[in-house]
């Protein structure tokens, strides 16, 4: 099955990003495709290159980047939501790209299931 994932909450503050990541990983392990992950609302903060968690904690940003690299997952950050929150190309983490809300709609159209993580 072809999945699209929407992440609506920031990392560390909220479990949504962790759950979305674990869902994506589990889906891929089961042989499904995760076509795109779309970051919206505070979810755009998952794409900040400046993120530096303590060493004994998971690195949520790098974890997404690694998943994208290994499984060709398209990580898209909403441009309007990102600019509001100070996420720009200059501080965008590896593996992510900034684009418009049309990418979210496209995921809804093209994927068999669109799964949202957030409040």
């Amino acid at each position: 099955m072809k999945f699209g994932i929407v992440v609506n909450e920031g990392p560390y503050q909220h479990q949504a990003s962790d759950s979305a990541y674990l869902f994506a990983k589990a889906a891929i392990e089961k042989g499904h495709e995760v076509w795109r992950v779309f970051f919206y609302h505070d979810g755009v903060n998952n794409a900040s290159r400046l993120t530096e968690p303590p060493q004994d904690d998971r690195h949520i940003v790098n974890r997404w980047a690694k998943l994208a690299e290994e499984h060709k997952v398209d990580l898209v950050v909403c441009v309007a939501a990102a600019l509001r929150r100070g996420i720009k190309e200059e501080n965008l983490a590896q593996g992510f790209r900034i684009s418009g809300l049309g990418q979210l709609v496209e995921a809804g159209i093209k994927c068999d299931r669109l799964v949202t993580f957030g409040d």
Partner: protein
Amino acid sequence: MSDAKKFMFVNRKAPYGTIYALESLEVVLITAAFDQDVSLAFLDDGVYQLKKGQQTKGIETKNFSPAYRALEDYDIEKLYVEKEAMVARGLTEEDFLVPVTVLSRAEMGKLMDEQDVVLSF
């Protein structure tokens, strides 16, 4: 429209206090531009998004409620309000900015079941 998917946007949050309602509206408008079958559901505190007479000066936030009136210009005319949520908050259909269809919680559930994509904010 035959190959269009049925998109439902579920609005559950008060219009201010968090940005969910405003950013939900932004996706709704984009989705309409993709010629999809769009409907909006309002439940829980989300019913307040449609309340007439919103005044946001005191919280220094933009009053985006006039945008709900513009939805029909985008051919978005399917707005559903959950009856239980509306009644629990002492509201009636006359309190809303735009014409809506009031559905019971059970009817709303059935409608959600018919959708291809449900985005909840």
